[in-house]
């Protein structure tokens, strides 16, 4: 496996942090105390296909999704609807998915993305899967990002 297919926790965190800053000017850092963050109750995911198949999942607190939507739209968080919260997280899954496949595929990227969707999939970790995860503190709110990859045969 060459360097372009490696995606460790730190690299995953960096690309998510970059996506948040560029898309919505939301600041985030790897959380030193994840247990102190609000629990995740909003989920979005996106599949990717190519040399490996996999999935990127976002687990977030509702307040994170609300702040994200407000930042993207340039409005007050109190004006954001539940639908907009979900839309924002769904779009972030899309953007993070794109960043992940770019990191995995390099300049000759042969990965492609599916459509982002809400919810989470039951995940059974096995020997054939590569899992990478990071937990970020985004202005006091939780954002977890999980990248599951099925190891190529």
């Amino acid at each position, binding site marked *: 496996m060459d360097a372009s297919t490696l995606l460790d926790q730190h690299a995953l965190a960096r690309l998510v942090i*970059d*996506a948040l800053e*560029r*898309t919505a000017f939301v600041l985030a850092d790897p959380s030193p105390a994840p247990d102190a963050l609000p629990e995740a109750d909003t989920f979005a995911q996106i599949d990717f296909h*190519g040399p490996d198949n996999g999935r990127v999942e976002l687990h977030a607190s509702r307040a994170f999704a609300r702040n994200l*939507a407000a930042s*993207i*739209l*340039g409005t007050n968080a109190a004006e954001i609807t539940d639908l*907009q919260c979900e*839309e*924002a997280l*769904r*779009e972030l899954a*899309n*953007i993070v*998915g*794109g*960043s992940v*496949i*770019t990191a995995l*595929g390099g*300049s*000759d*990227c*042969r*990965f*492609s*993305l*599916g*459509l982002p969707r809400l919810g989470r999939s039951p995940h059974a970790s096995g020997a054939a899967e590569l899992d990478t995860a990071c937990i970020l503190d985004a202005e006091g709110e939780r954002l977890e990002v999980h990248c599951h990859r099925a190891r190529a045969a």
Partner: protein
Amino acid sequence: MNPTLHCHVLVVDDSPILRSAIKKVVKLAGVPEDRIFEAGNGVEALEVLETVWIDLVLLDLNMPVMDGEQFARELRNRPDMKDVAVVVVSTEANRERLERMRELGVEHTLRKPFEPEALCRLISDVLGLKPA
């Protein structure tokens, strides 16, 4: 006079929240709000193009119903639409797909996540070349 004031822009993305964000950037680039249109997929985008003259399409690729590549192909097959400028704004990274989009006449590609200033500059560059 700013040439962008006379231009019509169509934002095509299946995410309503991102369409709103992109529309804001288009306004910042100098296009009046009543000249900015939106669509949630390629079919809706073609419907807009059949009723309104559009100078620039900002196009997502991964969409349901009709994706961006199918839309671009359809656009090029229509004599009255084939010269519309298209800029892809997408998370797409697949090299072969992006090459196909270039062969379909896509002028520029901006990967998400993008900085609003980068999109604003790109819109101004593309529309600034259009006659008033």
